[in-house]
């Protein structure tokens, strides 16, 4: 499949069963039922939404970046991508995407990796893995840092060159761009709306995202 597949959704935000604006630097966690549709909207543009998914009945079975890339033989996520779990299940399918490309190699920012990437003095800066740890701690149900694995970065642009280099580029997203998924099983979704200020992944200005959920659509 190609790395870009722009498809608009037919769903109307006014009919969503749930919607929530998530400010930059905040975590968000919620179960999504099989058949429900889940949309993440980049409200102001160029905002990375770091996202993890789990099989809701077995958290040891979770989103796997390596399995997802291998199954579709492509590094980038877009319409048609099946988000694979570590046990080989399809967690969700991307059914609409007005951005066209999402990353799953860049990982989530962390205080510790900021020290490596930018300067040892950056330790104090807020980071996605702080939000992820807080989210799974508060969710409880046996979850812990052990459950934090390679994530998706919706709206983030991390191209790999033919020479095998990897770079963080300006986002390809714009205000109002969104990605929408259909849950193929009951899943737990965890988002960190990225607070990174040290690179262009949020255009140096982290902004809110909106998440929407629609109930199963009629045939």
């Amino acid at each position, binding site marked *: 499949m*190609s790395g870009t597949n722009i498809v608009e959704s037919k769903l109307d935000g006014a009919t969503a069963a749930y919607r929530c604006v998530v400010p930059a630097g905040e975590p968000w966690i919620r179960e999504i039922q099989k058949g429900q549709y889940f949309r993440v909207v980049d409200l102001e543009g160029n905002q990375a939404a770091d996202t993890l998914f789990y099989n809701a009945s077995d958290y040891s*079975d979770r989103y796997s970046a390596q399995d997802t*890339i291998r199954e579709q033989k492509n*590094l980038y996520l877009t319409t048609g991508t099946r988000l694979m779990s570590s046990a*080989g299940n399809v967690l969700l399918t991307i059914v609409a995407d007005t951005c066209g490309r999402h990353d799953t190699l860049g990982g989530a920012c962390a205080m510790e990796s900021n020290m490596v990437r930018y*300067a040892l003095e950056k330790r104090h800066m807020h980071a996605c893995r702080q939000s992820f740890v807080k989210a799974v701690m508060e969710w409880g149900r046996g979850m812990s840092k052990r459950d934090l694995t390679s994530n998706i970065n919706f709206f983030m642009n*991390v191209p790999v060159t033919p020479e095998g280099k*990897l770079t963080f580029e300006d986002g390809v997203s714009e205000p109002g761009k969104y990605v929408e998924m259909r849950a193929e099983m009951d899943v737990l979704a965890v988002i960190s709306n990225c607070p990174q200020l040290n690179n262009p992944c949020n255009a140096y200005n982290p902004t809110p995202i909106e998440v929407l959920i629609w109930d199963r659509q009629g045939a």
Partner: protein
Amino acid sequence: MSEAAVRWEEVVQPGATWSHVLKRGTALRITDVEGGANVGAIFYNFECPVERYNIDTLKAQHVARLSKGCVLYSDMGRILCSITEDTAGGHDPIGGCSNAALVKQKYGESRYQEARNEYYKNARDGFLIELEKWGLGPRDLSPVVNFFSVLDAGSDGSISYRRPSSGAGSFVDLRAEMNVLTILNTCQHPLDPNPRYDPKPVRLSVRTVPPPGADDACRTFRPENGRGFTLTERYFL
């Protein structure tokens, strides 16, 4: 510089899984004995296994492929291992590992009952069983590095498998910068187009090596690695 004496050496058979706590100050050489080997590997801080190999490795060094000079980062900004020598020409940190369904679909079935120890193995089950021996489990299965295999990426993001041409005798040296629980598996790469079940053996050898100096090639590979070594050295203070 002459190489230190080998402390011990062993062969990992085709399709087998191996584990060991590589001690800080030692280096593991993995040699592709026949050519065409693939070695999947996962790495943990033995003292606190919730610290483990992380995909940060790629963005910290601006690479999507690992080779000499690269290091393997944990999620805590520390360096688990350094690639101090590499005659293989690149290693894949993206393709992941084979699983039972993939092996059955690609190669068919071969059970122990009929095939004895030649039965078809898959990397995921090998990793999970080995993790369990160390008190870890499916929640701890972290991203896999595949040594001796390369993935090429097109500008549209498409990936294709390439076997490096280095062949028999090529090797990679991993210097342990911490005490690293290392689990290796010699199953074929999951994107290996070979239609036959045909995993290859590798030879492992362990040496005692000096600590990385100020001009160490892995330390100076990127400014990020200099800070990674600093954080790793602080951990042992």
